[in-house]
């Protein structure tokens, strides 16, 4: 029996270690359980960069990370997903809208000199644009509350949107292409200007400062303006006073005004600090769960699962008697070991992940059921108690192995090809199945044989009701 004592010792040590791990290493909860936003960002190819490769993705990721930091979310995660997607996880984010706005915009800031000879055109084009914009907002406001937009109005709105795009392009045409862009900035700060309006002060780096001085010197006193463009849309077009004609505006700092609200100025500040994205992106998936909602769903599902498990434990003890009771102990040990393994391996528990865990408990129970059923059969065929238990374990082994391997195969398929939630489920189920094989053959077995070493438990009817008690 010394062999079983050693095993018993190992199991006790492992169980204590598991409890220590669970209390010391925190369980990592997924965003669906603790609340937060998960965004999937699709990087889109452009005419100049038709193929998105490793380098482009890294560049985009760096910028996105910079912006995520600007949002001030702790423990945020940015990771690549497939060839052209990024996954951004923002735990406990309070304003998912802001996150999506800030991460989605390209934020390509450009300072361009106006082409000479277009001084008359710019105000005209601008007027056209403003009148379109005015009509559009008037139209949108004119729809009385509680009515359906009639098709005529909707058609006009769509038409206006196209015209607005066309005149934005026309305005952009009035300016010369330029090298002075948002990546030559060191800082950006949003501040209130006048009334409710905000502006963004930017600080150029050395190179940018020189280029800006050069640009402003060229323009100064000519009546032409510097066009400040964000994503090819003209924000403002200030002219430069003639006094700068000699040196240009030095000091490397400029103010971007436009119709900024406090919010949009803050968004631009974060975007400019993070830098412009080399490629346009689109947020193609947003999953946001409020913090309380996540807590509610974890609690409800956990209570439900615990209630179900309690029923299973009771069933095992009632139906399988002594071995069932021992299996219950083994199952509790199993649950503790698996939980500790999740914490140690850094598995992020999501709602489907918990489902996978519960299912793996089902598999662990199945292993025990197989063994005990086999033991009973052997007992009924007239074998001694000890031999029956021995052969119950022995003969059930190949069934348990085969059935667990097939489950592991589907877990592997899920893990490689699945996404997000699906992977979490596959991972917890696979870890659970592996540990359940160990506990069924070490823990249940050791406990049973240890108990069998005590004469008072060596009664076949404790194993199988209705069998003659006389056999040793």
């Amino acid at each position, binding site marked *: 029996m010394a062999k079983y004592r050693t095993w018993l010792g190992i199991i006790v040590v492992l169980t204590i270690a598991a409890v220590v791990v669970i209390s010391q290493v925190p369980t990592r909860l997924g965003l669906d359980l603790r*609340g937060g936003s998960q965004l*999937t960002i*699709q990087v889109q190819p452009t005419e100049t960069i038709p193929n998105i490769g490793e380098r482009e993705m890294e560049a985009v990721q760096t910028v996105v990370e910079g912006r995520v930091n600007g949002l001030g979310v702790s423990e945020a995660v940015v990771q690549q997903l497939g060839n052209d997607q990024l996954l951004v996880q923002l735990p406990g984010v309070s304003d998912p*809208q802001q996150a999506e706005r800030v991460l989605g915009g390209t934020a390509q800031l450009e300072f361009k000199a106006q082409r000479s000879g277009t001084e008359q055109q710019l105000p005209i084009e601008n007027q056209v644009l403003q009148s379109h914009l005015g009509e559009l907002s008037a139209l949108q406001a004119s*729809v009385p*509350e*509680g*009515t*359906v937009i009639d098709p005529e109005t909707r058609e006009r709105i769509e038409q206006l949107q196209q015209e607005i795009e066309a005149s934005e392009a026309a305005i952009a045409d009035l300016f010369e292409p330029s090298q002075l862009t948002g990546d030559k900035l060191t800082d950006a700060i949003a501040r209130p200007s006048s009334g409710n309006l905000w502006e963004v002060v930017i600080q150029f780096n050395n190179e940018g400062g020189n280029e800006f001085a050069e640009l402003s010197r060229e323009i100064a006193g000519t009546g032409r303006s510097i066009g400040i463009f964000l994503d090819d849309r003209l924000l403002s077009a200030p002219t430069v006073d003639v006094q700068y004609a000699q040196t240009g505006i030095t000091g490397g700092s400029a103010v971007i005004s436009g119709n900024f609200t406090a919010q949009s100025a803050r968004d631009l500040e974060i975007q400019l600090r993070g830098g412009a994205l080399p490629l346009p992106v*689109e*947020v*193609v998936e*947003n*999953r*946001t*769960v*409020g913090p*309380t*909602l996540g807590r509610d*769903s974890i609690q*409800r*599902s956990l*209570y*439900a*699962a615990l209630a*179900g*498990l309690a*029923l*299973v434990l009771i069933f095992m003890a009632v139906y399988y008697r002594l071995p069932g009771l021992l299996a219950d102990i083994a199952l509790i040990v199993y649950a503790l070991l698996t939980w500790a393994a999740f914490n140690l391996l850094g598995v992020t528990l999501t709602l*489907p992940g918990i*489902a996978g865990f*519960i299912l793996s*408990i*089902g*598999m662990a*129970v*199945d292993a025990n*059921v*197989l063994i005990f059923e086999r033991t009973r059969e052997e007992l009924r065929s007239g074998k001694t108690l000890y*031999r029956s238990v021995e*052969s119950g374990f*022995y*003969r059930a082994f*190949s*069934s348990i192995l085969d*059935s667990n*391997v*097939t*489950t592991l*195969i*589907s877990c592997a*398929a*899920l893990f*490689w*090809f*699945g996404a*997000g*939630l*699906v992977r979490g489920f*596959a991972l917890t189920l696979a870890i659970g199945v592996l540990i359940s094989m160990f506990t069924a053959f070490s823990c249940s077995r050791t406990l049973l044989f240890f108990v069998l070493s005590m004469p008072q438990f060596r009664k076949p009817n404790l194993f199988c009701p209705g069998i003659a008690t006389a056999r040793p």
Partner: protein
Amino acid sequence: MKLHIIKQRSLWWSLSALVIAIGIGAMALSWQQFGAPLRPGLDFAGGTRLQLTRACAVENTCPDDIDLAEVRQILSQQGLESSSLQLLGQNQETLSIRTINLDVDERTSLQAALDEEVGPFDIDTLQIDSVGPVIGRQLLASGLLALLVAFAGIVGYLSLRFKLDYAVFAIVALLHDVLITLGVFAILGLTLAVEIDSLFIVALLTIVGFSVNDTVVIYDRIRENLKLHPDRHINDVVDDAVNQTLTRSINTSLTTVLPLVAIVVFGGQTLKFFALALIIGFLAGAYSSIFIASTLLALWRERTGQAYGDSDDTPEALAESPN
């Protein structure tokens, strides 16, 4: 109690065929209505779902119920009149709106309008799901791929451990379970507007993994019995094997389904239909292992002149049995 599964096999088969036929009928009907065999949820169809709980519900001080007509007005103002609305929660305090896929500005303006007219809403219980059409297709494709790879892996493993004919009938049984689950959800989609999401694909894969378990346990016993009694007819061997493992099949189904039933009854909204899919699939799996996989194997062996024990079926575990 002893089940005569071989004798009554035409009964078991017609029962399964009937259920599957009804399911396929429901899927055909769904195809006409939604252009898909099951009612596709947000994950696959794309779109935006907002779930908003009123702030007053936290302290349970809501003076009146949410006025759906008012919500519809707001939606039509924003050109979203084709959206679907639902009230959730014990006191109908949660508003769930599903629209076409909205970008962040459209969503913000909708939320602001709702907050002003119907709200205020509690920011802590907000839920947003917004899925673009690309992601929807991606989720579906990766799920189906995983399912196919799992099938192939299981066939490979079972042909290694048993023989090819065992593996083929195990897959037939799996298809049976998957079809029954799909059929039931097609019916649920038509009657109760239950939609399938990516968790449903997870459920299908779990069903595949689990129900093959049941089949494997019975196969294992058939293989063992063939070795022990090479002179017995395959029909008797299969009958014995099924009956010897019957208690185990019932007890295991019971212990796996119990926690799932608890989740269906008491669990959160998200996991409810996931657990239901698993219950249907597991029960179908237990049924198909007992009544479909084993009877088909017996029929095949009988027809191909292998009705009596085959020495190739040596289970390595048994070769060194301690008895």
